[in-house]
Each structure stands twice: as structure tokens, then as C-alpha cells.
């Protein structure tokens, strides 16, 4: 092989090429304005290759888009379906294409020429290869002077494609990174803003607890609670349809509307109706908000609310008994003038759970959703825990499963914490029943570990109370009933003795002074000495009397 002549020529090509390569590499690598740099590069490549035109096509989704061009026609923005044309072939095969007569090539996209008026004769096209595969192609058209591109031109173009590809993929990565950082920063700010709208956690046995776990940086869920001047606590939860910024903005708007309307202490149905009407005026089509809003009165232990398309509100008592209150109103923001019926429940010895569908939509290992039943099951198993640990345990359970949506939970704790019913019995008002009652009571106290001396005193006090009912309330033995209930509430024993006699005058039932030694009135004095507190009042349903007696249990081993 005679290598002299081509060798010399090759050397001269290389000599011309090396400085260009170095310059292009540097320019492309350092460029702050890639588009401009690319344009300059393509122009220089066209000149270097002695081509009439040059262009860079980049893969964007399923299209090859011209991002830089040099020559008589500016074809920037020209789009070819991925795989179409000679450019497409270079990308798909990831190999250089050298076509001497474009119009004879089956892949040639002739319609481009028709549109631009440029006449393509020969094509040389090199893929822009990266480690992740080709990202586009570098193309030169028509050797100046009517000649044809040859193998050396092909090798030269391939060499020139390398720094171009490198610069482009580097730039794309940098751009992506920059974009991500910017979005991240904005999301963090949005999240911070959202968090600042949520009320602070209240300590010291505050009956309302809540938390929000966003599935993304920002959340479409919110909760709120605040004190009203009359002692009630207003609460609200919402879940905006959709995720992302739209939902987040609507969430902020809806949360402030709910707070604004809630401060006035409107009835829950009016409260939601007002927010619904306000929201409807400026909500994007197809967006809506599911929400619950209401009040909890810590004195009466009653909660009242209205539910606009939010998941069922759950009441769970200490025995694990569950009651569901499904939504009776439609979501907010769909139509003005809608009605949101009021719902209520007493929370003595119970808790109210409100949660967004992020909780019920949590996925288990099998891919099924937890559902209302699943949540109920988890909550039931925790009914003996104090409210804070209960909420923490619930979150822990949920986190073991896959949380796919924003998750918001609120827990409203009823007045008496831990209630254990220890005894409930009914007996006729006859003295001969008393021995059996004492025995049952003593057993019940023994079961929870009340020591013998205290148990004896408590049994005595209850016996005294029952004796008084038989002698004074009923005026002597009879077949009427006496009911005894014993429960342990937050470490305190509560005895309730109920009769159906005419209402007693509590003022007449007073302990006598123990130093006054006489036979009568001793029973009440004994009750007074044994119990921490007692109270006689007409029964709530208006018939008979209810004597309530309380005794706090000290820690084990400690003399009360």
C-alpha cells in the first residue's frame, strides 16, 4: 500500500484538525450559552469539512430536533420522528452514514428539501455518542465544489462529533441538576410555608392531636385546630384533590377560608356552606376539596361536625367498640349552595379519629389498600394506649406499609382517659342481698390487685351506701332495684349506685361528726372517711338517684 501521499495529506488534515478539536472541546466544555456555542461550532465544522451546510440534531423524547445549523437555510427547530431520515438512521444504528446521492437513499426525508428549497446531494452524518447511547447526530451536507465526502471526511466528522456529544451530554446533565436544585429549593420553601400554617402541637393533655405526612415535598392535605373564646375547640381537616403545586395553593386558600369562617363559631353546617360558596367562586374546574370541620367541647365531651366528602369519622371507645360516621355532604368547591348536614357524638371514654384517604389508601405487602376496616383494626388494637403514644404507634404502623398519598391524621380524645368497667350488677333492695354484693365487689377489686385492707374499706362504704338506699331512699326492704357499677378511670375507682326511689334531698344526706357518738348517720360518715369524694344527685333520666363515689388508687405497694 502506498502510504506516502495519503499519509502526507492525512498529516495535513490532522494538523488542521487538532487545533480545531482542541478549540471546540474547550469552547463547548466551558460554554455558558450552549446554543450560541453550538451554532459557532457547527459553522466552523461546516467550513472545516468544506460542506455547504451542517447541523446538530438532538433526540428529544421521540423526535430528532435540529438545535444548531449552518448554511444557506436555518433549519433550527426542524423536527423528524426518531428513526426517520438519514440522521435517524445514524442515531438508531449508532454509526456514521455516508450517502453520496441522497435522493437515491430510501430513508432520505426529501420533504425537507421541498420546504426549504435546499437541494441535498450528499450527506455525511455521525452519531453523537455517549456512554448512555447516542443523543443525536452531527450532519454535514454537500461537499463544496460538487465533490463527494470520502472516508477521511467521515473519520474527521466522527472525531468532531466526540467533543460535541460530550459537551451536550454534560450540559444536559448540568441543566437537569440545576433544574432539580431549583425545584428542590422552591419546594422546600413551599413546604415550610405550608408547615407554618399548621397549628403547633399543644402539650399538657390538650385533647386534639394531629399530624401530616406529605407523600411529596408539598402536601394537598391540611389540618387546623384552635380555641374559641367560649371554651370549645374548633377543628378542621382537608384534602385537596390532586398533588403538587396546584393542590398546595388550593390547600393554603382553603385552610385560610376554613380558619376565617371557623373563628366566628358558626354551626358546622353553616361553616362548611360558607367556605363552599367562597371557594366555588375562584376554583379551577375539576378541582375540589374534601373536608371535615367542627367543634369539640371539652366540658361536655361532645364533638359536632359536618363532613364534606371526607372519609368516615371514626369513634372508638376503650373497649374497642367502633362507630363510623360517613360523610353526609359532597366535597367543597363543586357547586355553591350545597348543604352539609351536622353530625355529633359524645366522647366520654372514647376517641374520635379523622384521617385523609392517604391513610386508607396505604398499601399492604400484597398491594391491597388498608381501607377503613384496616385502619379500624389497627386503631382498635391500640385503645389502651395514651393519646400521644397511640398516634405515634399508628404512624409507625402506617410507615411499615407503603404510604402513596398525603397522610393526615387527627385524634380527639374524650374526657375520661382509661376506663375499665370492673363490675355491673343489679339487685333487689333487700338486706339479704348485701352479702352477695359485698362478695362480688371484693372479687372485682381483688382482680385488679387492690390490697385487702383498702378493699375491705371500699366494700364497707358501698355496703353502707346500699344500706342507706334500702332504709332511707326506698323506706325499707322492697323488690325495687339497686344498680351498682364500678369502673377504673385513669387510676381512679368510680362507684355508681343507682336507685329508682323518689329523688332524695342531697342536703339531708350529710355525714355526722364522728366525735358525736350515736348510732344513726354513721353510714355516710364511713363513706366519707373511705372515699376521696362522693356525690348524690338525681339520676340523669330524671328518675331516682345516683350516688357517685371516687377513690384514687396509689401506685402499687403504697398505702393510699
Amino acid at each position, binding site marked *: 500500500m502506498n502510504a506516502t501521499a495519503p499519509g502526507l495529506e492525512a498529516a495535513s488534515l490532522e494538523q488542521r484538525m487538532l487545533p480545531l478539536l482542541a478549540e471546540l472541546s474547550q469552547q463547548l466544555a466551558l460554554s455558558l450559552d450552549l446554543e450560541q456555542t453550538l451554532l459557532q461550532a457547527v459553522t466552523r465544522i461546516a467550513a472545516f469539512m468544506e460542506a455547504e451546510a451542517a447541523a446538530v440534531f438532538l433526540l428529544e423524547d421521540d423526535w430528532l430536533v435540529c438545535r444548531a445549523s449552518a448554511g444557506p437555510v436555518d433549519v433550527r427547530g426542524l423536527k423528524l420522528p426518531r428513526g426517520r431520515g438519514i440522521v435517524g438512521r445514524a442515531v438508531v444504528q449508532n454509526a456514521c452514514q455516508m450517502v453520496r446521492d441522497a435522493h437515491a437513499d430510501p430513508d432520505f426525508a426529501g420533504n425537507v428539501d421541498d420546504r426549504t428549497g435546499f437541494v441535498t446531494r450528499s450527506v455525511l452524518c455521525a452519531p453523537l455518542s455517549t456512554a448512555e447511547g447516542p443523543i443525536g447526530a452531527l450532519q454535514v451536507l454537500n461537499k463544496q465544489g460538487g465533490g463527494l465526502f470520502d472516508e477521511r471526511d467521515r473519520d474527521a466528522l466522527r472525531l468532531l462529533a466526540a467533543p460535541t456529544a460530550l459537551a451536550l451530554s454534560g450540559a444536559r446533565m448540568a441543566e437537569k441538576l440545576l433544574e432539580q436544585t431549583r425545584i428542590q429549593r422552591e419546594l422546600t420553601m413551599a413546604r415550610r410555608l405550608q408547615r407554618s400554617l399548621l397549628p403547633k402541637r399543644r402539650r399538657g393533655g390538650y385533647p386534639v392531636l394531629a399530624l401530616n405526612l406529605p407523600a411529596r415535598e408539598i402536601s394537598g392535605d391540611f389540618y387546623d385546630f384552635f380555641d374559641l373564646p367560649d371554651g370549645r375547640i374548633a377543628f378542621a381537616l382537608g384534602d385537596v384533590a390532586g398533588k403538587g403545586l396546584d393542590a398546595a395553593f388550593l390547600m393554603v386558600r382553603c385552610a385560610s377560608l376554613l380558619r376565617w369562617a371557623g373563628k366566628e363559631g358558626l354551626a358546622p353546617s353553616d361553616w362548611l356552606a360558607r367556605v363552599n360558596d367562597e371557594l366555588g367562586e375562584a376554583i379551577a374546574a375539576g378541582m375540589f376539596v374534601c373536608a371535615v370541620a367542627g367543634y369539640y367541647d371539652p366540658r361536655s365531651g361532645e364533638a359536632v361536625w359536618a363532613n364534606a366528602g371526607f372519609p368516615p369519622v371514626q369513634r372508638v371507645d376503650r373497649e374497642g367498640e367502633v362507630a363510623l360516621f360517613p360523610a353526609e355532604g359532597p366535597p367543597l368547591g363543586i357547586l355553591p349552595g350545597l348543604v352539609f348536614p351536622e353530625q355529633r357524638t359524645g366522647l366520654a371514654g372514647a376517641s374520635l379519629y379523622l384521617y385523609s384517604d392517604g391513610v386508607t389508601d396505604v398499601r399492604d405487602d400484597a398491594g391491597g389498600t388498608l381501607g377503613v376496616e384496616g385502619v379500624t383494626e389497627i386503631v382498635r388494637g391500640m385503645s389502651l394506649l395514651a393519646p400521644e403514644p397511640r398516634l405515634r404507634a399508628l404512624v409507625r404502623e402506617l410507615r411499615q406499609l407503603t404510604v402513596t398519598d398525603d397522610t393526615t391524621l387527627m385524634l380527639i380524645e374524650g374526657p375520661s382517659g382509661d376506663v375499665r368497667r370492673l363490675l355491673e350488677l343489679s339487685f333487689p333492695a333487700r338486706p339479704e342481698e348485701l352479702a352477695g354484693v359485698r362478695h362480688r365487689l371484693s372479687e372485682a377489686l381483688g382482680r385488679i390487685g387492690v390490697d385487702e385492707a383498702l378493699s375491705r374499706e371500699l366494700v*364497707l362504704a358501698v355496703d353502707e351506701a346500699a344500706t342507706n338506699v334500702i332504709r332511707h331512699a326506698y323506706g325499707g326492704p322492697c323488690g325495687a332495684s339497686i344498680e351498682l357499677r364500678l369502673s377504673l378511670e385513669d387510676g381512679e375507682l368510680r362507684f355508681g349506685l343507682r336507685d329508682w326511689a323518689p329523688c332524695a334531698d342531697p342536703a339531708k344526706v350529710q355525714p355526722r361528726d364522728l366525735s358525736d357518738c350515736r348510732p344513726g348517720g354513721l353510714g355516710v360518715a364511713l363513706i366519707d372517711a373511705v372515699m376521696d369524694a362522693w356525690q348524690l344527685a338525681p339520676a340523669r333520666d330524671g328518675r331516682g338517684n345516683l350516688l357517685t363515689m371516687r377513690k384514687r388508687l396509689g401506685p402499687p405497694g403504697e398505702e393510699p
Partner: protein
Amino acid sequence: MKQCSTETRGAWTAVVLGGEVDLSWSQQVRRAVLDALSASDSVAVDLSAVGYIDSSGIAALVEGFQTARGRGKSFVLLSPSDAVQAVLRLARLDKVFRIVDALEGAGA
């Protein structure tokens, strides 16, 4: 189980009680104590076998104590069980009654 009997122990007339003294039969106890006080100058109520006593039972004892004092007679509680002592303490009556462990040596 109820037990209420009266027997003579030396100079003393003893009312011996047993079981749980409550409203169901405290009237019977009261009668026995008052009867004993009518018949004797020195009455002891033996409470060693009493497992429970309520205020109606205590009231019978208080009435006995007051009657004896009014008539210048002797009235003692003999060996009250722990259960009875607890109630006496609770009613602040443990210092009011004369309580003895044995009748021997207890001045009638």
C-alpha cells in the same frame, strides 16, 4: 353464716357473734345486746369470729355502750377481729369502746 348466742362466762354475760353482721340481721344483734344488758350488769360482746360488720352492726354496739353507761353497767368488746377493728378505727370508735383481749382480769 350468722351466729348470735348469749352465754355466761364467770361474772360476764357474753354475746357471741360470728359471720358477717349487716343490715340483714343487725336488729337481731341489737336485741341480743340490749337483752343481755337487761339481764346482767356486765356484758361482753365477743367479736373474734366476725368477718364483717357494717354501720348498722356498729350502731347496735354503740347503743349497747350508751345504755350500759346510762345504767352504770360494764360493757366491753372482746377480741374484735381485724375486720372489726378496721371499721372501729375508721369510725373513730376504737378509743370510745372498752376493748379487751380476755375477760379474765377485766374488771366487771
